[in-house]
C-alpha cells in the first residue's frame, strides 16, 4: 500500500496546481480544488506516518527502475512526521489566504496565481522530504524555491520586489553551491543515491569528506538561515503578504534543517564538524534574539525569533546523540506550527490595528479579546513557558546538552536559556504595548489617522512625528484638516504597507481568517497535550537516524549495500 501512497504528497499538489491554473477563471472551484488537494495530502501523510511508525522505513522506486539507477522515495519516521506537520500548516495557511482573498479582492494578493503556486510549493516541500537521492533533493528544493520566488513577489510592489531580489539572489547562490557539491560528491563516489553514499562516503579520505560536508552544510545553512548565513531572512520575509510569510517561516527554513539532519546523520555520521555547528548554533540563537529584542515591528521581530530558534535545532543536531536528535526533531515539528501561527496572528493584528509597529498599536486586548488570546497562547509557547510544547522541546534539548557534558555543550545550554528569556522579553513587549496598554496611552487614539500621518511624515525628511502632531501642537482646525487631508491622500499610495490596513482598520476580522488561525493555535496547544506520544515518535526517529541501517536496508532490501 505504501508504494501507492508515497508519491502522492508530490503528485497530488502538482496535479492540483495544474487544475487550479486551468480553473483560474473560476475562483470558487479553484478554492475548493486546492483545499481538497491539501486535505487529501494531509490524509495521505497521516497514513504514511502511521505505516512508517508501525513498519519502519520503506523505499519506493519511482517508475520501476532498479534501485541504484532510478529515483527512490524514502518514507521513514522523520520524513513522514515532517510531511504531516507541513501539510497541516499548509492547509491552515491556505484557508487563511482564502479568507483574506475573499475579504480583500485581487489587487494585493492575486489569488488566481496564488493557488497554483502555493500547491507547487507544497509539492516541492513534499519532494524534498521524501527524496532518497541528493539530486532529487536538489530538484525538490528548486521546485519550492521557484514557487517561493513567485509568492514573495506577488503583486510586484516596490517593497516586495526589493525584498524579493535579496531573497532570490541568496537562494540562487545556495542552490549553485548545492549543485556543485552534488557534482563533487558524484566525482568522489560515483553515485548520488543517499543510501549508497552512506557507505561509500565512509571510505573516502577524511579531508575529502570534510570538504563535501562543509559544502553541503553551507548550502543548507543558507536555506535554514543559520548564522552567519541568516542576514537575508529578516530583510525579505516581512514584505510578503501575511499568509505567504507564514508558510515561508514555517516550512522553508525547516526544509533546510531537515536536509541538515539527513546529511549529518546519514552521510556524515562521524561528526567532524560538530564543534563548528555548536558554535554556529550558539551564535544563531544569541545574535538572532538580540536582533528580535531591538525590533519595534511585529513581523520583523518574529523574523528574528525565527532565525534565533533555528539555533535550538542546530544545537540538537550538533550534539549528535539520540536525545539531542529527538529534541531537535520535536523542536522542528513544534516550531513549524508555532511560527506559522504567529505570522498569521501578525496578519490579523495588521488588519485590526492598521499597522504591525508596536509603537503605534494599543488597546488591542480590549478591542478584540479573541485576537489577544490568539496572540498570547502561541507567544508564550514560543518563549517556552511551561507546560506548553515550546517548554518541552527546549527542556529536551537542554537535558541532552547537559547529558553530553562538554564545556561547549554547557555554554549552549546557557545560551539556550538566555535566548528563551529574551524571547519572552520580546513577545512580552509586544503584548504590553500592542495589547495591554489602554488605548488612551497609545500615541494616537485613532490608529488609522496616526498610520496615515506617519506615512506623510516618512515622505518628508524633516517631517515631525505624526503621532505627536495630532495630539498637542497648536494648529488651527483648518491646518489640522489639511494635514489629515493630505495624509489620507498619501496614505492611498499602494506601496506603503501600513496605510492600506489603516483605511480598513475598523472593519471586523473575517471569520475564515480567524477560524484558520484559531485552528492552528489549537494545534499548537494539542502538540502540548500529545507531547508524550510525539516525543516517543521523535525518539524512535532519532534512533533510526543514528542506526542508519533502517534507511539503507529499506532502499536495497538487504543489509548489504552494493
Amino acid at each position, binding site marked *: 500500500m505504501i508504494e501507492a501512497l508515497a508519491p502522492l504528497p508530490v503528485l497530488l499538489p502538482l496535479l492540483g496546481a495544474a487544475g487550479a491554473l486551468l480553473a483560474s477563471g473560476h475562483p470558487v472551484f479553484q478554492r475548493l480544488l486546492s483545499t481538497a488537494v491539501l486535505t487529501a495530502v494531509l490524509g495521505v501523510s497521516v497514513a504514511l506516518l502511521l505505516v512508517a511508525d508501525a513498519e519502519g522505513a520503506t523505499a519506493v522506486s519511482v517508475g520501476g527502475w532498479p534501485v541504484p539507477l532510478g529515483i527512490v522515495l524514502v518514507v521513514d519516521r522523520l520524513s513522514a512526521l515532517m510531511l504531516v506537520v507541513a501539510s497541516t500548516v499548509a492547509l491552515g495557511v491556505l484557508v487563511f489566504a482564502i479568507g483574506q482573498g475573499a475579504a*480583500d*479582492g485581487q*489587487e494585493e494578493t492575486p489569488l488566481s496565481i496564488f493557488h497554483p503556486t502555493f500547491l507547487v510549493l507544497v509539492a516541492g516541500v513534499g519532494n524534498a522530504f521524501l527524496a532518497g537521492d541528493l*539530486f532529487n533533493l536538489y*530538484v525538490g528544493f*528548486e521546485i519550492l524555491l*521557484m514557487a517561493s*520566488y*513567485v509568492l514573495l*513577489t506577488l503583486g*510586484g510592489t*516596490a517593497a516586495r*520586489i*526589493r525584498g*524579493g*531580489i535579496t531573497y*532570490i*539572489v541568496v537562494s*540562487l*547562490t545556495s*542552490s*549553485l553551491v548545492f*549543485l*556543485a557539491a*552534488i*557534482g*563533487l560528491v*558524484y*566525482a568522489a563516489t560515483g553515485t*548520488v543515491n543517499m543510501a549508497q553514499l552512506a557507505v561509500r562516503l565512509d571510505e573516502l579520505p577524511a579531508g575529502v569528506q570534510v570538504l563535501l560536508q562543509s559544502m553541503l552544510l553551507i548550502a543548507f545553512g543558507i536555506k535554514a538561515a543559520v548564522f552567519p548565513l541568516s542576514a537575508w531572512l529578516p530583510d525579505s520575509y516581512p514584505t510578503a503578504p501575511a499568509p505567504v510569510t507564514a508558510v515561508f517561516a514555517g516550512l522553508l527554513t525547516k526544509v533546510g534543517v531537515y536536509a541538515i539532519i539527513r546529511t549529518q546523520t546519514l552521510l556524515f555520521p562521524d561528526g567532524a564538524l560538530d564543534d563548528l555547528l555548536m558554535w554556529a548554533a550558539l551564535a544563531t540563537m544569541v545574535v538572532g534574539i538580540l536582533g528580535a529584542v531591538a525590533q519595534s515591528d511585529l513581523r520583523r521581530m518574529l523574523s528574528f525569533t525565527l532565525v534565533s530558534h533555528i539555533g535550538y535545532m542546530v544545537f540538537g543536531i550538533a550534539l549528535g546523540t539520540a536525545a539531542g536528535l529527538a529534541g531537535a526533531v520535536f523542536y522542528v515539528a513544534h516550531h513549524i506550527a508555532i511560527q506559522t501561527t504567529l505570522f498569521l496572528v501578525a496578519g490579523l493584528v495588521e488588519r485590526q490595528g492598521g499597522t504591525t509597529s508596536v509603537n503605534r498599536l494599543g488597546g488591542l486586548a480590549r478591542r478584540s479579546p479573541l485576537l489577544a488570546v490568539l496572540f498570547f497562547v502561541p507567544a508564550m509557547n514560543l518563549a517556552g513557558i511551561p507546560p506548553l510544547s515550546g517548554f518541552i522541546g527546549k527542556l529536551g534539548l537542554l537535558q541532552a546538552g547537559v547529558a553530553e557534558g562538554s564545556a561547549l555543550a554547557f555554554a549552549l545550554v546557557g545560551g539556550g536559556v538566555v535566548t528563551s528569556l529574551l524571547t519572552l522579553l520580546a513577545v512580552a513587549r509586544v503584548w504590553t504595548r500592542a495589547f495591554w496598554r489602554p488605548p488612551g496611552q497609545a500615541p494616537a487614539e*485613532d490608529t*488609522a*489617522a496616526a498610520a496615515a500621518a506617519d506615512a506623510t511624515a516618512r*515622505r518628508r525628511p524633516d517631517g515631525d512625528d505624526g503621532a505627536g502632531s495630532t495630539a498637542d501642537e497648536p494648529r488651527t*482646525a*483648518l491646518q*489640522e*484638516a*489639511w494635514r*489629515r*487631508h*493630505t*495624509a*489620507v*491622500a*498619501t*496614505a*492611498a*499610495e*499602494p506601496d506603503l504597507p501600513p496605510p*492600506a490596513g489603516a*483605511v*480598513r482598520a*475598523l*472593519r471586523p476580522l473575517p471569520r475564515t481568517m480567524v477560524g484558520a488561525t484559531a485552528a492552528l493555535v489549537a494545534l499548537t496547544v494539542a502538540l502540548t497535550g500529545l507531547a508524550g506520544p510525539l516525543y516517543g515518535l521523535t525518539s524512535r526517529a532519532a534512533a533510526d537516524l543514528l542506526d542508519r541501517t533502517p534507511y539503507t536496508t529499506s532502499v536495497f532490501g538487504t543489509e548489504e549495500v552494493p
Partner: protein
Amino acid sequence: MTPTIVLPLMVGGLYAAGVYLLLDRSLTRVLLGFVLLGNATNLLLLSTGGPAGLAPILGYSDPDEINDPLPQVLILTAIVITFGVSAFVLAIIHRSWRLVREEVVGTDEEDRRVAARRATDADELDPDELAPDDRIAGHADSLPRNAEELADDVDLPAGSARR
C-alpha cells in the same frame, strides 16, 4: 586517455567572473553572474563524468568506451532549472526597472499636494460648519469615505483607496 586541463581552467575562470558579477549592484550584471556561475557548475558536473568517451548509445558504441551518461542527465536538468530561474529574474529586473523609472508619466506627488491645498485654502471655513459631505478629513468618522472621494479627485492608481 589523458586528463584535460582545459575544463578545470574554464570552470575556475567562469566561477571567478560569475562571483565578481554577482557582487555588483546592477541587477542585470547579477543575472549575468548567475548565468556564468550556472554554466561553470554545469561544466563541473560534466568533468565529474571522468575522461572523455564515446556517446552512450546502445548498439552504437562499445560499453567499455562510453562516457558516463549520468552527469549529462544531471546537467540537462540543471540547465532547465537555470533557464527558468533566469527568465524569472529577468522579469523581476524588468519590473524593478519599471518601478524605478516609469516610462509612463505617473501622478506627481508634489502636484497632488498643491492641488489639495488650493481646495482647502479657497474657503477658509471651520470644517465643523460645513455639511458632512463637504468636510475634508477633519473628523475620524469621515475618514474612510474621504479617502475614496480623494481617490476620484486626484486620479490615484485604481484600487489603491479601497473602502
